[in-house]
């Protein structure tokens, strides 16, 4: 029998601390839709998405009602679209993207990921076409999200692909300049991209995944923050390991809620259940911030010495709690630091306590990378590439996922404010130190070899 205290603790998380299921993401394999002409393939894509995901939103809403837990986003992640683009023309890429956009609208999901290419070792014509089509795709569709994997621990870093991505990011920013470069918020560049990540913009159905699968992303920074605050209220001198323990227990509960919802959605749709990804993914709302957790731990200024250690503590405790909660933990699982989407991080950047370089250090121990960073519109392509290369190097050498979502804002300079609204939030254009200092290095292109995996000291 349940105890009153347990019931009230769960209720408090749900009603007062913003515990929700951030996303139920259905992965769909589209590889069997390859057909010619392109019009036939596009129709097959639309039909398959409608068939597989037609009931997704309705079922998620029913299960959300049953358990009294919000399912904030319902999304789709398809197999890498670059495979469908082999031997096609630029107009085919746009037609396919628009079909994905339309199908996503038909089944009422807010985003669809999988406009993806995996180019860590080399690039096929279809993958090049996909990348080159991104300015048109991301400016003319609403729901399509794109991701490109440019590096892996196994393959090293494809510096030529990074250079193409740097150019592409600037072109996407210019193609969406009337929305302050918003198209770039839907493009993530990865190292070691996970095949089962349910969070956007990097969600896609990777190789080795089932035909159709439900992956769930749970969040809950508000829950973790309140747990830390309660601990410190009751024991003001508590140690860092006590905080880690509290975070771990809280992560357990949050993960379990996500797995319950995900498994039931999968069961009722008759598809596989994949993973639950517990990632502390903030929203711009006060009380739903990862930065506030660091502040609750005792960091008065985010970015101060000790911030990287705080990120490491949080990230590790979240992973441990999640791993104990479920045998189906996957995706990114840890703490995100998307600057624009987190009001406390955005304020720290605006106040100058949190620099791009400090954020980069934090990404070595958090679960993703430099996420939602606003940059000056006149930034050089080599500077963008340098940031991507640095972040990829951190991921490749540390055997972890890193990604960048960089948003050059046309016509804006360091210190300018930009507001995308909604979940994408607002922020301040960040400064890049020595922006032209690595131009010659970047222009060499080529490939950075895979790191040695022995002699690990």
């Amino acid at each position: 029998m349940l105890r009153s205290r347990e019931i009230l603790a769960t209720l408090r998380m749900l009603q007062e601390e913003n515990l929700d299921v951030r996303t139920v993401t259905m992965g769909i394999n589209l590889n069997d839709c390859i057909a010619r002409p392109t019009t036939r393939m596009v129709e097959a894509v639309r039909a398959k998405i409608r068939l597989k995901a037609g009931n997704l939103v309705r079922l998620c809403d029913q299960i959300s009602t049953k358990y009294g837990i919000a399912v904030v986003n319902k999304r789709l992640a398809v197999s890498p679209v670059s495979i469908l683009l082999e031997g096609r023309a630029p107009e085919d890429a746009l037609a396919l993207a628009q079909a994905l956009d339309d199908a996503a609208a038909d089944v009422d999901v807010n985003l669809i990921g999988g406009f993806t290419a995996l180019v860590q070792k080399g690039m096929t014509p279809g993958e090049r076409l996909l990348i080159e089509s991104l300015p048109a795709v991301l400016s003319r569709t609403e729901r399509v999200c794109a991701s490109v994997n440019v590096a892996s621990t196994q393959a090293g870093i494809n510096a030529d692909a990074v250079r193409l991505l740097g150019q592409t990011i600037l072109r996407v920013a210019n193609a969406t300049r009337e929305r302050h470069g918003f198209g770039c918020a839907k493009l993530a560049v990865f190292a070691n991209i996970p095949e089962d990540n349910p969070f956007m913009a990097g969600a896609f159905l990777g190789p080795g995944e089932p035909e159709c699968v439900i992956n769930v992303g749970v969040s809950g920074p508000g829950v973790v923050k309140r747990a830390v605050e309660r601990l410190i209220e009751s024991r003001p001198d508590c140690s860092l390991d006590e905080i880690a323990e509290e975070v771990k227990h809280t992560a357990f509960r949050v993960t379990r809620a996500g797995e319950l919802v995900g498994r039931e959605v999968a069961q009722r749709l008759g598809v596989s259940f994949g993973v639950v990804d517990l990632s502390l993914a903030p929203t711009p709302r006060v009380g739903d911030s990862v930065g506030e957790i660091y502040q609750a731990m005792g960091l008065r200024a985010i970015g101060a010495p000790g911030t990287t250690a705080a990120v490491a503590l949080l990230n590790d405790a979240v992973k441990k709690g999640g791993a104990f909660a479920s045998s189906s933990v996957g995706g990114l699982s840890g703490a995100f630091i998307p600057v624009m989407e987190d009001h406390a991080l955005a304020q720290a950047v605006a106040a100058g306590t949190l620099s791009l370089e400090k954020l980069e250090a934090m990404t070595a121990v958090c679960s993703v990378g430099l996420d939602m960073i606003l940059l000056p519109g006149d930034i050089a392509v080599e500077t963008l590439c340098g940031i991507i290369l640095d972040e990829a190097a951190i991921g490749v050498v540390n055997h972890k996922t890193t990604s960048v979502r960089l948003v050059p804002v046309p016509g804006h300079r360091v210190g300018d404010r930009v507001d995308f609204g909604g979940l994408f939030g607002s922020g301040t254009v960040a400064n890049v130190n020595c922006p032209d200092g690595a131009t010659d290095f970047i222009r060499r292109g080529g490939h950075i070899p895979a790191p040695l995996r022995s002699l690990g000291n």
Partner: protein
Amino acid sequence: MKPKPPCRFVVTVLVPDRVAILRDITTAVTDLGANIDGVSQTVVNGYFTVTLTAAFAAPVPRETVRQAILEKFAPDEASVDVIPHDARRTARPPVKGERYVVTITGTDRPGVLKTVTSLLAAKGVNIEDWQVGFDGPLVTHIGEITVPPLLDIKQFQDEFRQAMAALALSGCVQHENIFRATNEVGAVRMLLEGRAHA
């Protein structure tokens, strides 16, 4: 020769709470040769209450059981009732449906339980357990209920919320698995399969 029917009683005791009440009651019953095969005990506002079932190997008059318990308390301290256990009346089919948890929070006022239980009864909802806790003027009701399979849960939740809002209270009805998943350590898939955790 037909075997004698077993002698089994249902015993209820109500008494101001103190240490060792349950010891006194179980000693009185056990010393009469009984095996206690069911107990539910709680304390409400300082009053200890217990319901137990006891099977006797040899027939014992119910008044003997009652007096044996009363002797453990001061005169007029306890209220004791002993009735024969009627297997035919208690052998009702189990209530079918899924288990939900009802929570009500807010400032206490007369009539809350009457309103809630009337609403639940009208929907064919069976109450399995109900607890009420107070913190100053604030009250928290937590009930575990079984909801009939054909009940439209969303409509029921909405009606329940509105009924509580009319009393200036906050009310929720949620499937018990959200509470079990977040508080128990067994596999989540077992909850969905309707299997209890070991």
